[in-house]
């Protein structure tokens, strides 16, 4: 479904501030796989996701989605095949649009937008309202409220629904619970698992928590210094626990994980 081949990305190339962010990443993800990505700060997790989404261009290598070579496609063109939830709740929704208008915008993703009324007819609007009700956040009563008035958790739930409203190839979750309080984070995470499981979505989720990276999804990837360090999938993944990951990290890199958040979260 998704192939990343020999991907290299360097920020500020040719300057003293040059930072190699991806250094030869190869990744193949089958349809229906839920991959969690973990790694220390600066490991290249978010760069990998941005490269798949199209926000970051590769210096070398290629990206293929469902057989299409999308390496040269701009973000908005890839968006027809990619649903995305950002880390920052404000980034994924439009504050000055209502909940319903945000959803309507997502409902026309990948299609040709014309001069039809964005909110659509009664039946379409009821269908959207039903979808919102399934989030269990009480948003169905606030369809006319501006997204800017929602709480962080509500906005992330709305983002998640917007990302998964239409059939698509890949769902990208970029630390989408990191900016939420623990309660809201758990709710949104469970909601993500529920929706991806129900629709059997191919998912890439970056997380800052080793616990979550093993508890959620079907495959765990650990990145370090712009490369994929560990790739755990299949039956043996069930036997892994957080200390095993830490050991493996130390064995492979020769140094211990020094990111408290990563270990403790």
């Amino acid at each position, binding site marked *: 479904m998704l192939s990343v081949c020999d991907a290299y990305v360097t920020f500020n190339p040719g300057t003293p501030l040059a930072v190699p962010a991806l250094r030869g990443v190869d990744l193949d993800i089958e349809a229906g796989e839920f991959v969690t990505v973990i790694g220390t700060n600066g490991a290249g997790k978010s760069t990998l996701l941005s490269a798949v*989404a199209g*926000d970051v261009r590769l210096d070398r290598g290629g990206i293929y989605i469902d057989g299409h070579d999308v390496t040269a496609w*701009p*973000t*908005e*063109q890839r*968006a*027809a095949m*990619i649903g*995305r939830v*950002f880390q920052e709740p*404000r*980034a*994924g*929704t*439009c*504050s*000055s*649009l209502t909940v319903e*208008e945000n959803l*309507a*915008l*997502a409902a*026309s*993703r*990948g299609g040709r*937008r*014309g*001069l*039809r*009324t*964005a*909110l659509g007819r009664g039946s379409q609007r009821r269908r959207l309202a039903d979808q919102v009700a399934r989030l269990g*956040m*009480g948003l169905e*009563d606030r369809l006319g409220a*501006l997204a800017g008035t929602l*709480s962080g*958790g*509500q906005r992330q*739930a709305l983002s998640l629904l*917007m990302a998964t409203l239409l059939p698509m190839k890949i769902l990208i979750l970029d630390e989408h619970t990191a900016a939420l309080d623990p*309660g*809201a984070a758990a*709710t*949104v995470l469970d909601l993500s698992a529920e929706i991806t499981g129900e629709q059997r979505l191919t998912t890439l989720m970056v997380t800052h928590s080793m616990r979550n990276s093993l508890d959620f999804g079907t495959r765990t990837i650990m990145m370090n210094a712009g490369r994929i360090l560990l790739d755990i999938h299949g039956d043996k993944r069930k036997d892994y626990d957080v200390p095993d990951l830490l050991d493996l990290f130390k064995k492979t890199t020769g140094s211990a994980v020094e990111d408290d958040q990563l270990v403790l979260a």
Partner: protein
Amino acid sequence: MSALAISGALEAGLLFSLVALGVYLSFRVLNFPDLTVDGSFPLGAAATAVAIVNGMNPFLATVVGMFAGGAAGLVSGILNVRFRILNLLAGILTMVALYSINLRVMGRPNISLYGETTIFTPFETLLDFGIWTNCVVLLVIALAMKFLVDWFLSTQIGLALRASGENPVMARAQSVGNARMTMIGITLSNALVGLAGSLFAQSQGVADVSMGIGTIVTGLAALIIGETLLGSIKVAWATLGCLIGAVLYRFFIAAALNAGFLGIEAQDLNLVTAVVVAVAVVLSQARRNSRFRLWPALRRAFAAPQPQKG
């Protein structure tokens, strides 16, 4: 104030409400501080005047003026999006270029439309409201444009345009082409301004190459007055604010000139406009800041228990 002065202020106000609608699209919806306006306003006037003098039907000539304004906007949009020139500078470049272009279009610094058939001529006999005829015609046009903008911003493209202006990152993730939206928005904005210039020339009976100076500031003044009175969150209210703000603004100016307030004369108008805009911006910012601190406190004090915040 005489009836003539009132009808004149109303007429000018309704004309500039079209500029305000255009400025609303660029400055507010698209978040693109577009200064093309000072050039597209006289361009609309020039194109229409030349067309009318050469015997074109005035309605068609008005459409020509509107398209000319839109084309000017498209140039600014392309400069910004395709050639990555800063939006402010892109508008300024087009505006400066338009001064020469407007002279070329007209062939001389001004064209008189005295005695020509304009868009207002048929209504003089049809409506027969005396000095109020132009006001009625302009009111109908301004309202039509307001509702057109309201409708457009509620369509799929319009929604994409609003998202693109406010949150380009999110818009892109929803497959909105931000570059395309900028070009569409700036074109429509300047088409409205071109229409305003076209109608202005026809109501005043002259197109002049220097008539565009300060147009953007007048449009902004109208927009900000409207926002202060009616709020800016709902599109329909913001566009209504453009109409009311522009009319009120012209009334302030007319009253100030009329009363000889502080010795203000016609040549001081641009200074007065700039001061009014500066003061209005400062006031609206102060209001917004104080509301920021006030609002949570009010909500905590009066709100019923919130259902399930998460």
